[in-house]
């Protein structure tokens, strides 16, 4: 038995991983082979081009193997992953697990391939009639979310000043030179969706929040979805609020009055300063849209470390209202105040020069 965990450029053989885990005390040996398939999500695939950050990929695979061998006693694991151009039917990955009894071997082999797919820095580019694309990358490039994001970006520059509610809209802009389109330039924002049922595929509010904030120039440094669990939400807020370049956390969902709504319970104890005016202004604006039901939202904002945290309801309408009318106009100035930068003095000096 020899430790065998590697990235290879030449064709793989199951025999190699089997030999690496075969030993006299193991009565069970489970293997897995991953082959190049001729279709993916309805598209025809003719060739897969695998690429790896090889030195890190081997370390990461070794870490996974060591972790599983520690979790499941008496298993031995081996894995080889191929990179380069692979034709349909060729083997991309082989795994083997041996153990005294079959349950552990099956289980360890399954966990091994699952974790490899999850974290090892290997990528594949599909080639087919529809042209090449990196698997997993297209979602970000071609989803309706970012497609409209690009279009909206240009739109925002052109019509930046034609903000809705023109009566006092201009006065709310903290940076009248830039207008809403560039108001958040250089601001890092992390976005959290709180929901027991949403996934990245149907997270409409989270997608909308990211789109609106990026259109305004913010960089979304993190996007996540968590269930309505106060301890997980609180941990996420604590972890992300202390990152110095993250100006704000925008959380959607869990602000209602049902028992499962726990965002406010998670956030309140963490706030060193509460911005009561945010919730008041939000409900005032929301009242114009939905009437008395507006008071059922406990939307809240405040400060954790030097980070602004906004908790918004989970509906896309509410998210749009809060981001457009309050967060975008407020954030640059509020964030500068929290970081002890005097924006006004700074810009006056700029003018003097």
């Amino acid at each position, binding site marked *: 038995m020899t430790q065998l965990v590697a990235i290879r450029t030449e064709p793989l053989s199951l025999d190699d991983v089997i030999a690496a885990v075969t030993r006299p005390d193991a009565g069970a040996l489970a293997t897995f082979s*991953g082959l190049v398939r001729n279709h993916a999500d309805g598209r025809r695939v003719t060739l897969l081009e*695998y*690429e*790896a*950050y090889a*030195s*890190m*990929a081997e*370390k990461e695979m070794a870490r996974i193997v060591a972790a599983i061998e520690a979790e499941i006693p008496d298993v031995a694991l081996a894995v080889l*992953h191929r990179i380069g151009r692979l034709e349909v039917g060729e083997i*991309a*990955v082989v795994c083997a697990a041996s153990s005294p009894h079959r349950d552990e071997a099956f289980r360890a082999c399954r966990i091994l*391939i699952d974790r*490899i*797919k*999850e*974290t*090892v*820095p*290997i*990528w*594949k*580019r599909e080639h087919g009639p529809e042209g090449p694309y*990196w*698997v*997993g*990358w297209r*979602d*970000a*490039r071609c989803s309706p979310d*970012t497609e409209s*994001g*690009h279009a909206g970006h240009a739109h925002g520059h052109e019509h930046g000043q034609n903000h809705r509610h023109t009566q006092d809209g201009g006065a709310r802009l903290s940076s009248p030179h830039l207008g809403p389109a560039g108001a958040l330039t*250089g601001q*890092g924002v*992390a*976005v959290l969706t709180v929901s027991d049922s949403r996934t990245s595929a149907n997270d409409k509010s989270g997608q909308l929040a*990211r789109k609106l904030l*990026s259109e305004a120039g913010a*960089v*979304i*440094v*993190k*996007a996540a979805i968590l269930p309505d669990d106060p301890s997980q939400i609180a941990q996420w807020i604590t*972890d*992300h609020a*202390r*990152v*110095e*370049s*993250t100006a704000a956390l925008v959380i959607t969902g869990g602000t209602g009055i049902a028992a499962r709504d726990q965002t406010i319970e998670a956030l309140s104890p963490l706030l060193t300063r509460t911005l009561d005016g945010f919730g008041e202004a939000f409900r005032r604006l929301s009242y114009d849209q939905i009437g008395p039901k507006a008071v059922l939202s406990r939307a809240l904002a405040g400060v954790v470390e030097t980070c602004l945290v906004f908790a918004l309801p989970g509906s896309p309408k509410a998210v749009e209202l809060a981001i457009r009318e309050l967060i975008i106009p407020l954030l640059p100035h509020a964030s500068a105040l929290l970081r002890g930068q005097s924006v006004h003095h700074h810009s006056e000096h700029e003018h003097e020069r």
Partner: protein
Amino acid sequence: MNVEVLYFAGARDISGKDRESVDLPAQVKSIASFLLWLSDRYPDLTPHIPSLRIARNETFADNDDLLAANDVLAVIPPVAGG
């Protein structure tokens, strides 16, 4: 602060290079501020930032991890092994 930046897969297509040595501005101290810097340098990467992970010296880093001189920072798009 000088660091080596590696680009893979879709991120490499956008940056147009495998790797580059860069002298980061003084305010870029953490992984999160590095992501901001990256978005500024390659605007087409901006919509992908939430899906990128950064590996610092061959280990996945958290957003609040601090950078050090001569770090190797790898821009890791969503992985797709197997």
